[in-house]
């Protein structure tokens, strides 16, 4: 059958990929023996196990009809992940308030229903709320405003 959209086939491939990465990396660590396990022992065993499982899952999908992956819409995921990474890039440079506004603005593109006025208001509310709760009430160590001199 055509495997290009089979859920099980791609799940098997994904597990095989992770197994390959694990085993290649684990080769760099001392294996040791069962009685004196090195740091590579358990990862290597798990990597092998995962590889075998991945193979079985992928192979079995060739024999049986299974569910097909339904339509992928990558736009929401991309903007959400972009928002998360943007937070990581900006938080120690611009501080909490400006970072949150930027993140909300980017993340809003994840939904087609977002309206610009609402997003602006939401960003402002979230920035004020977070400032109050996380910085003033909980006193978490967060940079609040840009630190151009530090």
């Amino acid at each position, binding site marked *: 059958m055509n495997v290009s959209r089979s859920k099980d086939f791609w799940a098997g491939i994904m597990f095989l990929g992770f197994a390959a990465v694990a085993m290649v990396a684990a080769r760099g660590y001392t294996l040791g023996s069962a009685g004196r396990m090195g740091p590579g*022992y358990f990862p290597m065993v798990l990597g092998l196990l995962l590889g075998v499982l991945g193979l079985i899952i992928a192979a079995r999908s060739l024999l049986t009809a299974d569910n097909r*992956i339904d339509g992928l819409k990558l736009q929401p995921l991309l903007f959400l992940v972009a928002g998360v990474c943007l937070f990581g890039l900006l938080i120690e440079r611009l501080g909490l308030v400006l970072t949150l506004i930027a993140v909300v603005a980017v993340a809003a593109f994840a939904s087609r229903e977002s309206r610009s006025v609402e997003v602006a208001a939401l960003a402002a509310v979230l920035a004020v709320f977070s400032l109050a709760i996380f910085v003033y009430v909980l006193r978490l160590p967060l940079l609040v405003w840009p630190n151009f001199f530090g």
Partner: protein
Amino acid sequence: MDLASNIAAGFAVALTAQNLLYCFVGVLLGTMVGVLPGIGPVTTVAMLLPISFALAPVSALILLAGIYYGAQYGGSTTAILINIPGEASSVVTTIDGHQMARQGRAGPALGIAAIGSFFAGCVATLFISAAAPPLAAIALEFGPAEYFSLMVCGLVAAVVLAHGSVLKAIAMVVLGLLLGLAGTDVNSGIRRFTFGFQGLADGIEFVALSMAIYGIAEIAYKLEGKQDWADVSQAIGRVWPAWSDIIHCVPAILRGTGLGSILGVLPGGGALLASFAAYTLEKKVARTPRAFGKGDIRGVAAPEAANNAGAQTSFVPMLTLGIPSNPTMAMMIGALMIHGIAPGPRVMIERPELFWGVIASMWLGNLMLVILNLPLVGVWVRLLRIPYRLLFPAILAFCCIGAYVINSNAFDLFVMGFFAVFGYVCLKLDCEPAPLILGFVLGPMMEENLRRALLISRGDFSVFVTEPLSLAFLVAALLLLALVAAPAIRAKREEALQE
């Protein structure tokens, strides 16, 4: 100390003004995220984990526990009123609960859900107080071989109870174990799977991983579909059910509570499984099974009692063995570790105030929940009018702040971004994330116990079958796997786990 004085000591801890406040905040937030379909207790607990830094360990646990069982109450409200489960564990409540609402009996449905939950919560609290100490006493005798086999058994149980393909669930467990090993190895000092990233030296941050999978990947998945839930315009009416309804439900609530209490303790169990099992059982024993699905009040009472009982008793393996039975319990272990407490049988001896304080708070929390849910149900319904387009940026923002403040490390955000993509792929490929999360938490513990067991036996693997308890755990694990493999039971399992 006997049970009564233990419980009294627990109430002394839970009844301080401060802990009462944290309990209240916990159940309030729990109800809120329970009502809202877009966000669940795992994400909420993960977001609040950094906050618990600032609290005493017992207050932190009281707060986080409140979120979990509070969500079980809130989930039923959404299930009954708009036919969408607010929480996964209230899926079965939609069947009869929403039918009742359509017949104009939304009030009694909400009422019986709260009453059943409250009763179950009280019984489950007693159950934990009675069951946990003997279990911890046994666990104190465990050596590394027993612990390793117990973890194998627990992970196998989690696999058996996961939705969908067993093979894929096992693969997710193994992948979780591998991810858990990333970071500096405590024995050799070697950095494993860090790929040169300084930010991975302490391993993959658990909070970032779980928020990525349960928070952000879920949002992405949800944004693909229809975003707004149907509007809630129907009147709720009188919430207190008629006495005849209550009497009609007593046996169902008792059965649901019993079943939920037992299933909650099992590894892989908890609220979700308990509610499914309770509904199936009610249908089996009812003299009029045809009424189910058409608005039978027992079809609301039993699963709601069961999911609350299961949510609470799932604390037993976490508090006594240090082994999480579901992702929320894995977060609780994370919370304890932040405070430098290694969860396990010693907690009950060395920190009795922690253990009994949390248990006493559960009973108080249940009382607060009845008050929050019955008279104030109208307030919660209004929450459902918040459109998702406003909700998801807020969830995302809080996830980001939570992931950052846990270590004050911006790198954790990139970790979260990476695993959000991974979590989305898993959702698309029908790979259940819960086994991965459990494997992640147990990875380092499993390796350490395997290493120690084999060190003592000088590399002889037979130690796992010559120790009687260890053998028992492994046999149980094998039996579970054999059960799933048997075709007849396989069909039943698929039927039972189907929505």
